[in-house]
């Protein structure tokens, strides 16, 4: 049996260690590529605001049909809520989890703008069928949007946009209450 020289043994060992290390790195790299970690969902406070606004929009559509004498003001208030809803959606686009959910949602538009029936269902509530119910829903929205504004985390990356937006929406909805009552 031929004797193996020290130099041969050493270089062989080095090659073996390098091969094992390389394989390990390659394996790790491939694992990183294959495992897709889903982005965190968007803040529930924002999706809840959006759901409430979509409910208000549907409520305005229902109530306006029964209130022809107040059609002009109801139309103006509805336009405000539509603008607020669009602004909340625009902010939600900053969250990868929201964008992903919109891509997966059936019927989602290419821009990620979801149709009203794609609203988060958790806080959608019952349809609003009367002016009284609409007023109550607006009052409830003022409270919940205000609370979302006050409790938004100080360190959340989009706070500089979200906090004043929620404050403006809460203040805007409070003026709607004056008009509805």
């Amino acid at each position: 049996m031929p004797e193996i020289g020290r130099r041969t043994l050493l270089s062989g060992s080095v090659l073996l260690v390098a091969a094992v290390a390389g394989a390990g790195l390659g394996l790790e790299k491939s694992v990183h590529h294959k495992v897709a970690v889903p982005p965190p969902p968007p803040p529930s406070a924002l999706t809840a605001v959006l759901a409430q606004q979509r409910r208000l929009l549907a409520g305005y559509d229902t109530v306006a049909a029964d209130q022809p004498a107040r059609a002009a003001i109801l139309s103006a208030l509805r336009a405000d809520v539509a603008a607020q809803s669009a602004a909340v959606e625009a902010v939600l686009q900053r969250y990868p989890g929201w964008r992903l959910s919109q891509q997966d949602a059936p019927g989602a538009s290419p821009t990620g703008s979801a149709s009203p029936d794609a609203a988060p269902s958790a806080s959608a509530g019952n349809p609003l069928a009367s002016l009284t119910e609409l007023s109550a829903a607006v009052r409830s929205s003022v409270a919940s949007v205000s609370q979302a504004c006050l409790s938004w985390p100080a360190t959340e990356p989009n706070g500089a946009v979200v906090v004043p937006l929620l404050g403006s929406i809460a203040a805007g909805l409070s003026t709607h209450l004056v008009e509805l009552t």
Partner: protein
Amino acid sequence: MSSPSAQPSSGPAAVAALQAVLATEHAAIYGYPVIGVNLTQSAEIEHARAAEAAHRVARDGLLEQLAALGTAGAPAAVQYEPPKPVTDAASAQQWALALEQDCASAYRNLLSATATVIAAAGGSVASLTAYRSQALAGLTAAANDSLYWRALLTPDAPTVPFPGT
């Protein structure tokens, strides 16, 4: 337009935003008496008086708040100019609306500051919430006063979606 009774520890970072709010309160206090003498309807005059009183309360609170933070509140200017000369009820209503919109904008900026400079300065969650409560109350009050004047000027479109912007 209330001010927090406790002084938040992140106060120094809020001074600029509070001074900006104070400036708009000074302007409103100056403007409302001029507005009042040009209004003709008793309900509007009464609303102007109530609004002026509310702005005085807010101003006094801000001065105390700033003093507690070790800063003197900026004094009022000698004179404030309306966007257009106030010569009748309509121009008075327009100035009132402009003054309230300025207040709303300043309070909204204070709200923004709670998510930027005030937040960066640290402080407790309670102190941040106190500033936000103050800002939100001021923004809401100014939005509702704006609504009152805008409803007289443009009855079919008395509201805006984003007060303070």
